[in-house]
Each structure stands twice: as C-alpha cells, then as structure tokens.
C-alpha cells in the first residue's frame, strides 16, 4: 500500500516533470519577489507625479554643473571659485547648447545637474516651460542689467554675457573671387555672393535660429522678413548643423562667408586665420548665456553658492576678457576685435516671443528651405 503510493507519487513526479515543476516554481517565486521588492510606495508615486515637490536643502559639498561655455575658458573662470570655496567639488559637463538642453530634458525624471551655467536663455526658457528650473535670486542680482535676466522675481534665469550674430568673412578668398566685403544683411542678397555663403541651420543650431528670429522681428512685417529670407536662401551654399561651423568653414577657406557669432569670428581672427569679423549695420540678433538652478528633491547649498559666485564682480571681470557684453558692467577694456559700442549693435529681440513662436518659425523655415536636398553642383 505504502509502496504503491510511493510509486504513484514517484511516477507523477518523474525526474523530468519534477524538474519542470521546480523550475517554474522557482521562476514564479523570483518574479514575485522582484516585484514585491520593487513595489513603489504611494507617497513616492505621488511625488513623482507632481514633479520633485517639497525640495529640501542639503550640505552636500559636491555639485554637478552643466555648461555650454567654451571649453578652454572654463578652467580660468573656475579658479576664483575654487580659492573661495576649497571644500566644494565642482563636476563640469560641457557640451554644445543643444546637447546640454537635450540632456536636461531627457533627465527630467531624475535630474543629474544641480546648476546650469552659461547656457542660452532661449534654451533655459524651454526647460522653464517644462518646470525643470527653480527660481532663485543670487546675491548681487540687482547689479545685473534687467535686459539680460528673467523679469520675474525671484528670476528663473540670470544672464552672464551676450553673444550676437556676426559674419566671418575670409579676406583672402574674397579677394581671389573679387567679392566685396558685405556690410550688413542687405548686402548678403547681392547675386555676386551666390553659392558663397554658409549659415547654421536654425533647426539644428541656436545660432541659426538667432539670425532667423532677429531678421523676422526687425523686418517691418513678418511677411517682409520671409521675403528677405527667400532672397538670402538663393545665395546660401549650405545650412550647417552647428553654430560655429560656418565660421570655421570660412576660416579654412571652404566658403568665403559664414554667418556665425561674434566670439567665434574674433577668436579665429586672433588665431591667425584670414577672417574679418563683420557686425551687420542693421544690428545683430542676440541671445544671453545664463545660469539657473535645477529643480530637484534635494537642492544643495553649494549650488546656490555657485550661482552667487557666477555673477560676482571678479568672475564678471574674467567673462569680460572674452565677451564684449557682460550682464554686470565691468571696467575691463573691450577685448580686441569687437565692435566699439556693442550694446548699440544689439537689434530688437524679444526672447519670450522667440521662444513662444519657435515651433511655428521652424516649421515654416523647414517647409520653405530645408526641402532643398540636392547637393549644389
């Protein structure tokens, strides 16, 4: 009797079936355990839904800073911060404006940065719209030119310097081709320049968008602005995927004229390239490089210390060595190669209007000009 039972049970659970049963059991157990261990508390879920609410301060002394400032300048700027705050470790992530902004937005669920430093205000407006920034008034914000900061109080972003559109004209190649040096936007539509001008694609570069948006804002009507862009388009050889590349192409003689920005043009000239920076007579489109605090559950005091420092007089003096306009006036003489009265050079520009209309402008621009896909011959 007992033997029979044993035999039946043994057969039922013959080695093969027993194995299969055991593996299924083990697998289900593992899954249950995994889900149970990872189940989220309601509190956390709500917090995740409402964004990082209820931020707290912390004394952690290591901060991560995202920046689009030029790589070679950063270490020079940071010197004074490190002497003033030797106990704070600063980790810098430097990349182009587009990548920094994309990183900020992609990491929205779990922000990695504590601070954004020197990144286009037009990009920070996108981050602000997504609720990623925490308003903060850094010490000394009163000294900042109101044109170059968020007008809310406390401000979401505070500018440090201004960059503006400028033409990089290669004098050697222009002479070879018999091209006159253009003085402003109006000259660029002259048919002699056909196929000799490159500019940044506004759909992939902030600098490109800057030029397009300022042309639209400073034309009597937007329709006339588009009409001008149509004419300009006839002369453009290439729309490039970066703000500095048109100037670099001009510097290397690939194309005689690149529509780029002031700092690029001046620094390439200073490095010995045959570049003449041209500031258009009609005025330049411009944007502000600005700082902001990232909204996250734990906002570090060190991050605020960094933002206070980033608009302090001694670092402003450093910015002024490479930029013609800083958000706080300094007595540093204008760096070589820039226009004498840079602030007067700035065209009318409403950053908020540009941000609000960006999608519409880019869609229209793409429809008009980007479909031209055949290579120039």
């Amino acid at each position, binding site marked *: 009797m007992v033997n029979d039972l*044993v035999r039946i049970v043994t057969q039922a659970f*013959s*080695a093969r079936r027993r194995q299969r049963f055991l593996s299924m059991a083990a697998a289900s157990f593992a899954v249950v355990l995994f*889900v149970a261990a*990872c*189940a*989220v508390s309601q509190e*956390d*879920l709500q917090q*995740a839904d409402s964004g990082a609410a209820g931020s707290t301060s912390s004394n952690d002394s290591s901060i*991560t*800073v995202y920046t689009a400032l030029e*790589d*070679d300048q950063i270490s020079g700027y940071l010197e004074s911060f490190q002497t003033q705050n030797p106990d704070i470790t600063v*980790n810098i992530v*430097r990349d*182009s404006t587009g*990548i920094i*902004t*994309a*990183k900020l*937005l*992609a*990491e929205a*669920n*779990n922000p*990695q940065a504590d601070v954004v430093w020197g990144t286009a205000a037009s*990009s920070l407006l996108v981050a602000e719209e997504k609720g990623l920034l925490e308003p903060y008034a850094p010490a000394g914000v009163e000294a900042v030119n109101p044109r170059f900061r968020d007008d809310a109080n406390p401000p979401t972003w505070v500018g440090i310097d201004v960059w503006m559109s400028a033409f990089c004209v290669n004098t*050697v190649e222009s002479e070879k081709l018999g091209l006159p040096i253009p003085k402003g936007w109006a000259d660029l539509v002259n048919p002699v320049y056909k196929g000799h001008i490159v500019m940044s*694609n506004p*759909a*992939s*570069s902030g600098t490109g968008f800057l030029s397009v948006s300022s042309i639209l804002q400073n034309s009597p009507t937007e329709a006339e602005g588009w009409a001008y862009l149509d004419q300009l388009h006839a002369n453009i050889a*290439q*729309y490039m*995927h970066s703000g*500095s590349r048109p*100037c*670099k192409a001009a*510097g*290397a*003689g*690939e194309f005689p004229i690149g529509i780029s920005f002031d700092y*690029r043009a001046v620094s*390439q000239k200073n*490095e*010995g*390239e045959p570049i003449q920076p041209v500031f258009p007579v009609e005025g330049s489109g411009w944007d502000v490089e600005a700082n902001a605090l990232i909204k996250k559950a734990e906002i570090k005091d060190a991050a605020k210390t960094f933002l206070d420092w980033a608009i302090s007089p001694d670092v402003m003096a450093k910015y002024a060595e490479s930029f013609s306009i800083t958000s706080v006036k300094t007595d540093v003489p204008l760096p070589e190669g820039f226009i004498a009265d840079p602030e007067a050079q700035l065209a009318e520009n409403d950053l908020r209007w540009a941000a609000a209309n*960006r*999608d519409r402008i880019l869609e229209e621009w*793409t*429809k008009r000009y*980007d*479909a*031209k*896909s*055949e*290579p*120039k*011959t």
Partner: protein
Amino acid sequence: MTPTTPTAPRPLRVDRTKAIDTEAWIMRVLLTLGAIWLLVGVVLPLIPMIGRSFRDNNGEWVGLGNYLRYLTTPSLVQSFTNSLAVALTTTLLACGLGFVYAYALTRTAMPGKQIFRTLGLLSLYIPPLAVAIGLIFLFGNQGLVTTGLFGSLPELNINLYGFNGIVLGEFLYCFPQAVIILMTALNLTDARLYEAAEVLGASPIKTFFTVTLPSVKYGLISAIFVCFILAFTDFGVPKVVGGNFNVLATDIYKQVIGQQNFAMGATISVFLLVPSVLAFVIDRIVQRRQTALVSAKSVPLQPKPNPTLDRIMFAFCTLVVGFAIAVFATIILASLVRVWPYDLSLSLKNYDFGSVGGGGYRAYWNSIRMSLYTAIFGTIIVFTGAYLVEKGRGLKWLRSAKYFLSTIPLALPGLVLGLSYVFFFNNPIWRIPFTGMAIYNPFKGLYGTMALLVIVNIIHFYTVCFLTATTALKQIDPEFEAVSASMAVPFYKTFWRVTVPLSLPAILEIGIYFFVNAMVTISAIIFLYPANLPLAAVAIVNMDDAGDISAAAAMSTLIVATSLGVRLLYSWLTRGMRARSEAWLSR
C-alpha cells in the same frame, strides 16, 4: 536520459544522473541570465522610446499623430528616400570592393597579405568625425585633391558636400566590416570541391560562379545586411559633409539636439528601425537554410600562385588601402599644421591638450580604460552567450529567442540607443504599461557610471561580435560535445578545455573589435557620459565644435595610433598561441 527507476539502482548510474542534473541546471541558469541581460540591455530600454512616439512633447497621448505629421511633411519624406539612396550605394560599393579585397586575402597567393589584413581595417580605427575632417581637407573646396596640391597638379572637384561626401565617408566606415565578414566566409571552404571542378575541366570563371559564389552567399548576404544598416543609421558623416542633403539620422539630430523635440525624434527613430528590421528579417529567413559548409572531412584550400591574378589583386589592394592611408595621413597632417590652409608650418603644440578643452589626456586614458573593460567583459559575455545558443542543450525556445535578441542591436542607431538608455536607466520609477502598477527601478544606480558606458558599448557592438562567435562555433565539429557527454564530462569543462582553445582566433578578433569601436564611438555615449569621465571621442567633438580642428585631429591620431598599436601588439603577443590553435584548421 531515462529517469531512474526506484528498483535496484546501481550506484554509478545514480551519480551520473545527479551530475547531469546539476549540469542541466547550470546550463539553465546561465541561459536565463543571458536572456535577462539581453532583455535589460536591448528590449526594455526601447519601450519608453517607442512609447514617446505616440505622445506629444508634453506627454499627452496623440496616437499616430506624430507619424501622420511626419508623413505629410515633404522634406522629411525626402530624407527617407535620401537615406535609402545613400545606404544602397554604400552597400554596393563596400560589399563589391570588400568582396574583391577579401578574395585577394584568402584565395590568392598575392604578397603582403599580413599587412593588407591589418591595413584593410584601418578606417575602422578612425573616429567618424576625423574621417569627415580628412575628407574635407582632401576633397573640400580647399582640399588637397580639389586644388591639385594647391595648383601643382590638375584640379579635381568631386562636389564633396552632399551625396558624394556621405557615400565616401560611409564607404570608409562599412568597408572593413564587409571585409571581416567576407573573409570569414571565404575562409570556410572545402578544397575537394575545387579539385573536383578542376578534374571535371571547369574553367576558373565557371568554378568561381558555380563553386565560390554559392559557398559564400550567406556571408555575402550578411555583409550586405550589415553595411546597409550601418550606412542607413550613421549620423556622424552626414552631419559634417552632408551639406543640404538631408538623411533620417540628421533629422533625428535636428529634432532632438536642435529643437529638443523628443516625441518627433522617437517617431523618426521608429522609421529608422523599419528598414533595418525588415533587412534583418530577410537575412534571418535566408540564413535559416544555411547548412554546415565545413564537415570534419573537409580539406582547407591552399591558394596556388597565379602571377597575373596576384599582381592585379596586389594593385587593387594597394589602391584601396592607399585611399584609407591618404585619409589618415591627411588627419596627421592636419594635426601638425598651424592654420590650414594659410600657414602650413608644422608644430607639435596641438598634442599638448592643455590649452584646449575636452579633458585632454585624462579623456584619452578614460577612453582606453572604458575600451579595455568593454573588450574584456564584452568578449566574455558574447562568447559564452553564443556558446549557449549554439551548443547548449534544452530550452530550445529560449535559445532561439536569445539568437533573435542578439541580432537586434545592429538595427539600433547609436543615438537611439543612447537616448533610450537615458529614458530607461535614469527613471527612478517604472510604470508598467496598461496596469497602473509601478515599481522602483533596480538599475537606477548604474546611471552616470563607467559600468553603464561599458554596457551600452557592449550592446551597441553586440551583433557583429555575436555573428563572428557563432560562425567560429559552427566550425567546431559537434562530435566534441557528443564525446564529452558520453564520457560524462560536464559541458563547462569541455567549453574551457576544448571550445575556448579552438576558438581562440575568433575570441581575440572579438576583443579587438570591441576595443577599437569603443575607442571611436560617439553617438550612444554622448548622452550618457558623466561629468567626471571625459572621453577622447567626445573630446574630439568638443574640440571640433570649439574650432580647434588641429587639436581634434591630434586626438584622432592618438586614437588611431592606439588602436593600431593594440592590434599589432595583440597579434605579436598571440602569434605562438594562434599558430597552435589554428594548426587544426590547416591540416
């Protein structure tokens, strides 16, 4: 195995069953671990990515809205046809020339094969951005070729910017990959077939079409598939030399980097996946019919000298290698001159990365460290994975699923992979779709570490390595496993004592492939690299962005020199080892 019966078991038999039991369990655990690895590395990160293509930028559900918008924008549809044109032309060129090159290396008695083998892969070691810099300096409006060495030779303008430039760049990128696959295929042959053809009086041309081509047709299809997908999805080359010729990969760049429109970026990524997945499915269907080409009785082919053919092939290989060398030499030149093309005096100052950003030598060492980890762990994971799929027993459905998952990464562009990883790994809480449930992300700690960089690299380059490992394993006669099993030697001992030593050449090849690719890759890494880990390939992008083209060229030169050095060191150190492990092939 028959199950043990309760009546009178002999002790020996019980022991063996137990041994096989544990062995089967080890096999299962390993297979499951491998499947989890592929699930977490490949499939799960794609879910939030694809999910985004059905939502607008504010996370509202829009169904197929993004797809409709895409299909009704003429410029975007144009990009799709442009991408197809580029990919098809590149595939034709790379596989055509790659075939002749691989043929010369395996089937002729041309001199200098060892050198051509190394140099044929040269362009694999050059970072894509550096390739573009080299092409501009050669064929751009002020290029050495365009101006005929500044007027001393006839001018030749190939209209670099646009279709021509992209195809040229993609060709350099795809050619070595085609050569690797085709060389493996051409190596596997049975000399007896050629002897038979000769005895039957077939002309060499007829032999080529009736024996050679059919025997490599699967390798050829694989090469076509790999080249097509690589050329279709790459964005580094079109970004720099594409001019106004839009392709899908630059469209993703414009949406994601230029406009931070992730929803549209995700939508275009899905479009990018479609032809890749299609090509993949076709490849799978064709490959299913493949049977073992080499049996235990095969005789390896020893190419006979044929002076005319050998000379033609030598000239051809010199020409192809010459092109890659010209591009590399231009990069070296660019790293040495002061202001191209106006002040051509030479200086070494660009190799002191102190005055430029990007992390300089620290980035360089980080890259080496990352590539080394990728090579070591990648090789171990890929090879054991391929072994379990190819030679494992039981759980057939799991093994087929793993095979399928192992081939998917090839269809994923780096940019898509990198973004998917951000969305997936940097999210503290996962919501399980359609259930309203949510769990904590157990892998959150990986974000922003070297480990995640290594993982994304391994996954990014998984497929080609996996296919190489599978090919190598197929060469080993299954009788080894059969004999081991009948002698009750556990599979892991056979693996360690027989399989690994026999496959050593392939294993070393995989390690090198991982290393050189991790050194130059940008697209997947650029979103993932953390603040404290600057990397050399990213530094090149940053330096180029900042206008320091010479410094970017200098860093590229360092990377190429390192990869070449590692390759040479590797073949020198393992010469004896390879000779021993390859001996069985040439008997």
